[in-house]
């Protein structure tokens, strides 16, 4: 007789750290047939955490879920133990910099940020708005309406309205877009200061090098899933272990590829149509060193050595095993 045993219970979720302010448990979000976020769990505590992923990875949807702007299709999101979708009082503790650029175009920057301060019920909305604008280096007395602002000024106005009520959790969706290098540095420093002051700062970005400067802790999303979580450098090392695909153009491309293969520098070779070959190398640094050496030995002229998969999308494809 066959005895059917009940399926084993799902493994218990990992314990929630005591200082966790954001707790995401098995959250999925779909829009019709499109799965934007799939079974994602993580916690975020004080300090700066970067949410990294290529465009379309589900970062913005995840940030919207955290702020209650859209409900999860499955799973739970808790901020300070409450549901940000239903608990209106939580809006006092959350500041959001959304991705979309459109603001209240008729208002000045001061009017825009002051409106946020008024709606948050601050005692001195004018003073708070001026302080928040000063923090992002925008002139509170700038008379122009936002309609006349550059992209960078708009970004900074958005950051100011998110900080005006001194929230405990600051969620920023691609906040550095459109900023010049100096402004980027200023905002990155600001995020670090907020994190050091005990705020929870969650910053999304699709630019790998940008994220490195935000802080050590990262959440990596790809194709709606949480692909990696933890220390940035550990994940970066993991990324560097993947095979690198490189196109080499030379007047003696085939001989060059053979030479690299014989030395064990590359693990795969694909011949191109003309003067190019595409090689797969495990150790990208070694490949960079060896290509000119082998080319010199063969008397070959190098026209191009171009990585084909250094973009973030390929990194994330690797992380999710796609």
């Amino acid at each position, binding site marked *: 007789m066959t005895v059917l045993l009940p399926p084993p219970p799902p493994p218990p979720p990992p314990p929630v750290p005591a200082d966790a302010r954001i707790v995401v448990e098995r959250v999925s979000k779909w829009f019709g047939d499109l799965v934007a976020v799939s079974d994602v769990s993580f916690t975020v505590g004080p300090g700066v955490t970067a949410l990294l992923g290529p465009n379309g990875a589900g970062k913005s949807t995840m940030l*919207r879920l955290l*702020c*209650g*702007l*859209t409900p999860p299709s499955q799973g739970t999101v808790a901020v300070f133990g409450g549901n940000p979708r239903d608990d*209106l*009082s939580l*809006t*006092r503790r*959350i500041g*959001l910099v*959304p991705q*979309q650029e*459109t*603001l*209240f175009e*008729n*208002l000045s920057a001061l009017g*825009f940020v002051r*409106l*946020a301060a*008024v*709606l*948050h*019920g601050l005692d001195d909305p004018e003073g708070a708005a001026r302080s928040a604008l000063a923090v992002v280096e925008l002139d509170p007395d700038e008379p122009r309406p936002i309609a006349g602002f550059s992209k960078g000024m708009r970004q900074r106005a958005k950051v100011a*309205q998110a900080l005006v009520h001194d929230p405990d959790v600051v969620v920023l969706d691609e906040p550095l877009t459109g900023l010049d290098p100096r402004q980027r540095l200023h905002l990155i420093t600001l995020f670090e200061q907020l994190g050091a002051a005990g705020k929870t700062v969650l910053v999304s970005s699709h630019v790998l090098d940008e994220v490195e400067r935000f802080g050590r802790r990262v959440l990596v999303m790809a194709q709606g899933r949480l692909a990696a979580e933890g220390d940035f450098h550990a994940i970066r090392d993991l990324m560097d272990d993947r095979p690198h695909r490189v196109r080499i153009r030379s007047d003696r491309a085939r001989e060059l590829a053979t030479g690299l293969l014989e030395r064990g520098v590359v693990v795969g070779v694909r011949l191109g149509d003309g003067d190019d070959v595409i090689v797969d190398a495990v150790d990208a640094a070694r490949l960079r060193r060896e290509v000119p050496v082998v080319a010199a030995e063969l008397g070959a002229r190098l026209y191009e050595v171009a990585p084909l998969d250094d973009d973030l999308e390929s990194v994330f494809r690797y992380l999710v095993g796609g």
Partner: protein
Amino acid sequence: MAALAPTRLPIYRLLLRSQVSRARVLALLAIGIVGIVVGFAIGAGDRIDELRAGARFINTFGLSLLVPVTALVFSAAALGDPSEDGTLVYLWLRPVRRSRIVIAAAASSFTVAWPLVVIPLAVAAWATGGGSALVTATVVASTLALVAYTGIFCALGLRVKRSLVWGLLYIFIWEGFVATANDTAGRLAVRTYSRSVLTEIADVTLRFSAISSPYRWIVPPLVAVVALAYATRRLRRQDVA
């Protein structure tokens, strides 16, 4: 305005500013001026019953066209525009009750629509020669209709994209065609109630105006309340960009 909660007033001001664009105001003002011109033309005609002629004009032009279209243009945009361009997030993510946002939106669109509707129609009613009773009836009936349409189109602006198209379909297909099939169907159109108010105050008889008192007075504001309650619920539950 003193009764408005401190958070409602700035939202009201904000939405009022965002709705008042020169193009919208000029276009609707032009329609109102056309109404006044036609009113004078009717008044200058050689008619026996000027009151009835004026009432018919106010019903056809004012209650069936100017009032609903003006309400649609402003009310649908009040929350529809912020919802579509993503700026709603800057109101939504504040500790402000959703009902306050909706009421502020409705109040702002009513504020801007009322003078564009009621003043030209009152002048047109006077110009027809229908007398002070017709002017009073026009002011009251168009205000009452505007209240109902403001609620309906505020909710519509949140509920659907391209709310202008859906609103025009409602005005011209439903209210202008389906609801004129018989008296029972007519009870499902706002204009039937406002027409009934017009005929009661002006003491004239028009087709499809058989809604008895007090329903002709109660239903339009009730429609607005129900629509705004729906809009509040919708705002609470909808996805915000």
